């Protein structure tokens, strides 16, 4: 079964097409990696799935339901959560509050309930704090940092807070945009383990944009390769590693012989 099915997606800005005819399927409970050189359209693809961009053509199906036209703020309630390439945390808020924001759509408190802060609102808030402490923060080893402001945390931890925020929504589909960019080898390994644990523990379907090919080869069940806004290949990691078109997309092609080699 496929959790996410994207059919024949086309996206263009003022005549320049960022994606053309892209079809990618993310199988339920599996890790699907989206790879490709810079500027291939990977992040645009994510932005369509999370609703920032309305595609020029094509459809996005979540569990068989067409969500192509759904505005971004309606999607988390359906179980979509994501992280960003450049960490997008709310500075000036504590780690705990940042994570709590991830659970926004699962809470009910309205304006008046919030202002009076009696009964239901108070209970709901306490329950959320408890749940985050026990499920998410503990799992991601963030419990000791809950009351710190996010901008005081080192980079690796910030990435983890972002992941925690996405997990607080208990998503069915998790989009990770370069989750280990700028990390060193040890941090990458820790993050990779976390991603596998998330899948194991919650059965979350994961879509992953990543440049570290070692990691992609290792983590993913399925790989889709984008180049120039087109999906040039899909298959298992091993197949992709042997695919000549994929290799040349990455390493570049010799192309036409150079007019003049440097001396």
């Amino acid at each position: 079964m496929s959790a996410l099915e994207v059919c024949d997606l086309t996206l263009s800005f003022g005549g320049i097409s960022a994606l053309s005819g892209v079809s990618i399927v993310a199988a339920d409970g599996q890790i699907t990696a989206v790879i490709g050189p810079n500027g291939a359209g990977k992040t645009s693809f994510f932005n369509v799935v999370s609703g920032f961009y309305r595609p020029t053509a094509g459809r996005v199906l979540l569990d068989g339901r067409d969500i192509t036209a759904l505005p971004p703020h309606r999607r988390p309630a359906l179980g979509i959560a994501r992280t960003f390439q450049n960490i997008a945390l709310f500075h000036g808020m504590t780690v705990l509050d940042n994570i709590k924001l991830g659970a926004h759509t699962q809470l009910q408190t309205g304006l008046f309930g919030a202002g009076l802060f009696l009964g239901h609102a108070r209970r709901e808030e306490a329950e959320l704090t408890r749940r985050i402490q026990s499920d998410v923060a503990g799992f991601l080893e963030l419990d000791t940092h809950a009351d710190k402001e996010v901008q005081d945390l080192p980079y690796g931890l910030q990435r983890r807070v972002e992941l925690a925020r996405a997990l607080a929504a208990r998503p069915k589909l998790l989009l990770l945009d370069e989750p280990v960019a700028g990390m060193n080898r040890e941090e990458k390994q820790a993050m990779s383990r976390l991603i596998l644990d998330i899948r194991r523990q919650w059965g979350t379907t994961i879509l992953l944009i990543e440049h570290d090919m070692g990691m992609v080869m290792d983590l993913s069940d399925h790989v889709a390769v984008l180049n120039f806004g087109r999906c040039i290949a899909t298959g298992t990691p091993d197949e992709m590693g042997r695919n000549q078109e994929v290799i040349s997309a990455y390493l570049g092609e010799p192309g036409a012989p150079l007019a003049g080699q440097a001396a």
Partner: protein
Amino acid sequence: MVPATLVLTGVDIRYQASVDAVRDLSLTVPRGGIVALLGANGAGKSSTLNAISGFLPLLRGRMMAGRISFEGEDTAGLAPHALVRRGVLHVREGRHVFADMTVEENLVAGTFALTGRRAVHRRGFDEVYGYFPILAQRRKGQAGYLSGGEQQMLAIGRALVAEPRLMLLDEPSLGLAPRVVAEIFAIIARINREKGTSILLVEQNAVMALGCAQYAYVLENGRVAAEGSGASLAADASIRELYLGVGADGAARSFRDAP
């Protein structure tokens, strides 16, 4: 002995969010040479270029340690426009042509680098049009309507007007079709040969870059993982591993089995 055009020694770069971008990087660009800087995303390639061209403070980054010297002089603390006026031209990733201006106006913008050196002149423009005849045809057209390849040509041409002694090219192949990439690399090589401009080239397109560079460095996580002549690196398995994760050591890098 003639000093090298550019020498970096022990450079550490850090951004505000306490990301270590580059650690203990040393590299040399010899006079009149083409040097390539390769590596995956986030390896620190662009940060290195930004440090050289003085953009780091504008991007909330800092050079924590090390020295950058251009033609034997320490350039630390120079404002970006001052560096440009000395001949260090940075052609940024993603081209950044002034979309609302005409091609020729983009070239005029390039002449600000000549302030204090000599007056504006048409000869530079003609030279650019010589290298890129397509730009001559489009000279009155808005730069925003050029194709990706033409915009890249304009970005390079705009730097060329400023009579650079060192060009920093950040991913000139980004998002371009292979045929266009080959064309642009051919012209880069020609500029280097004919004008003696030193070039530091950041690339993802490893085959292309190694094809025209005499020497190359491979960055991984902000450190130099490999270096050598273009030809020797092209034959090296480490390049393949870097990009495809299927190096000689094969499955040694498994995260699944990690404790």
